[in-house]
């Protein structure tokens, strides 16, 4: 802020002073207005004219949009590109963090959702501990474009269905929801059309699958679902957890199990576990809550 004002409020003209326009305000005032807009809106304002482009790039505007632990997050970003080694503006940092950033050998990704800057995380099937994953009678890894990791775990059939995941991460303070992204049936593309093979789908309507989540600070959540709707990717909501401190590592353990051995189940694609800020709506996904 500050009183750094040069000539504002328009010059005195012959026929009376012309009215103040938004473009007459000093850049610091325009930037103060932009603080109240979301990042995509701020970027749109940059297209108005050169003066607005300047205000729309101001560090103090973008610093307010970055998550509290953005330095930790930037530390995870692979700096394969030379230019990122130099000083990045706060806007460039925000843009960078909005891209999917792989870590842990590409088995996990994090990104900021661009409207509010909330943290999102995805843990691929390759990072999950799946009982029987090495036995090709039960499971195999299937390449597909329908996963951000280009591969999902496909279950043909099994008695003991158990998938466990763990992650330790610094989340910006807030509340988050955890999901498993699942698909009944095997998707494929034939002659440009998407098809879904449901020959192995069975057993999910007999007993529900139990989903569980726990944190290192003793938060617990769980849910149960009968898996339904072959042919669509569905996010099954496991539960929510709260992070109080942006600087503390939070350890999460999450799982889904269906270990009633009186029946087999199969025909399921497991893509990943997903963590979104609570309340975030991903329009393209079907989400199921208990």
């Amino acid at each position, binding site marked *: *802020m*500050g*009183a750094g*004002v040069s000539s*504002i*409020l328009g010059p005195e003209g012959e026929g009376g002073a012309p*009215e*103040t*326009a*938004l*473009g*007459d*305000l*000093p850049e*610091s*005032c325009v930037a*103060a*207005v*932009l*603080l*109240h*807009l979301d*990042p*995509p*809106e*701020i*970027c*749109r*304002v*940059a*297209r*108005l*004219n*050169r003066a*607005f*482009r300047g205000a729309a790039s101001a560090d103090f505007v973008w610093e307010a949009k970055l998550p509290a632990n953005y330095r930790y997050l930037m530390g995870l970003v692979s700096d394969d590109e030379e230019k990122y080694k130099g000083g990045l503006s706060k806007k460039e940092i925000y*843009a960078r963090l*909005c*891209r999917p950033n792989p870590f842990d050998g590409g088995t996990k990704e994090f990104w900021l959702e*661009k409207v509010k800057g909330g943290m999102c995380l995805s843990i691929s099937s390759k990072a999950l501990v799946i009982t029987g994953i090495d036995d090709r009678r039960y499971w195999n890894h299937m390449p597909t474009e*329908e*996963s*951000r990791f280009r591969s999902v775990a496909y279950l043909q059939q099994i008695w003991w269905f158990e998938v466990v995941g763990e992650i330790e991460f610094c989340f910006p303070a807030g509340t988050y929801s955890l999901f498993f992204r699942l698909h009944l049936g095997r998707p494929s593309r034939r002659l440009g059309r998407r098809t879904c093979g449901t020959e192995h789908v069975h057993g999910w309507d007999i007993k529900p699958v139990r989903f569980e989540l726990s944190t290192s600070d003793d938060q617990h959540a769980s849910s149960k679902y009968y898996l339904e709707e072959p042919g669509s990717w569905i996010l099954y909501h496991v539960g929510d957890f709260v992070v109080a401190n942006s600087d503390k590592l939070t350890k999460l353990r999450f799982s889904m199990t269906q270990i009633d051995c009186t029946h087999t189940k199969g025909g399921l694609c497991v893509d990943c576990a997903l963590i979104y800020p609570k309340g975030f709506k991903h329009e*393209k996904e079907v989400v199921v809550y208990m």
Partner: protein
Amino acid sequence: MASQDCEAAASSRAAAASSQDCEAAASSRAEKEEQKTVRVAASSRAKKKEQKTVRVAASSSRAEKEEQKEERRTVRVTSNDGEEFEMDEAVARGSVMLRHMMELGIALDGVTLPIVSGEILALAVSYLRFHRDYDDGGSGYGYGYSYGYHSESEDTALTNFDRDLVKQLDQATLLDLLAASNYMEIEGLLRLTCQTVAEKLKGKTTEEIRQTFCIQNDYPPEEEEEVREEISWALEEKSLD
């Protein structure tokens, strides 16, 4: 025998004399002591008198200052077109700029704002006055824009006031008020006006904003393309399918 007497007499005389001396000495010492005491008493009385004088002088000058303080509890602010506004110092403290001027002692003869008109200053002063009653908590020291410490009805009164203040302003006046609150460093009013302007920007396309706010597009076509590229990350929709 006579000489013995003489000697005795002499020695007794000497003794007497010496004792007289002693006495004299003693008495003279006593006198001196007395004088000293007197002198000490005198000086201490003088000191007390002195201190009394000092105390009287100090209290009278403090009383003077108090009196002056009573008078100087307001500050006069003048717009660039000569309109004068008199407000309590506690109210004026809501403007960080005025607060600093008062603390530095350069607001004693009033403050003139060369870039704020009377119309705008009137709005700013009414904001400061209203918020002083709610935000200050009576201490006259801290001035903050804080909703958290009030009852619900007070909060509603605050939001109603703010909303009504900006509602009836035309665009130019709103922008002038924004600029003035930035210049005068009135945090709450700056936030209020910025939020109001931001609301008018939301949901509009670039062209719509240009029309609403009379903004000239000074981009040559190549630069316009460059900007569109630069911000594409914020506008694209990512799809997994």
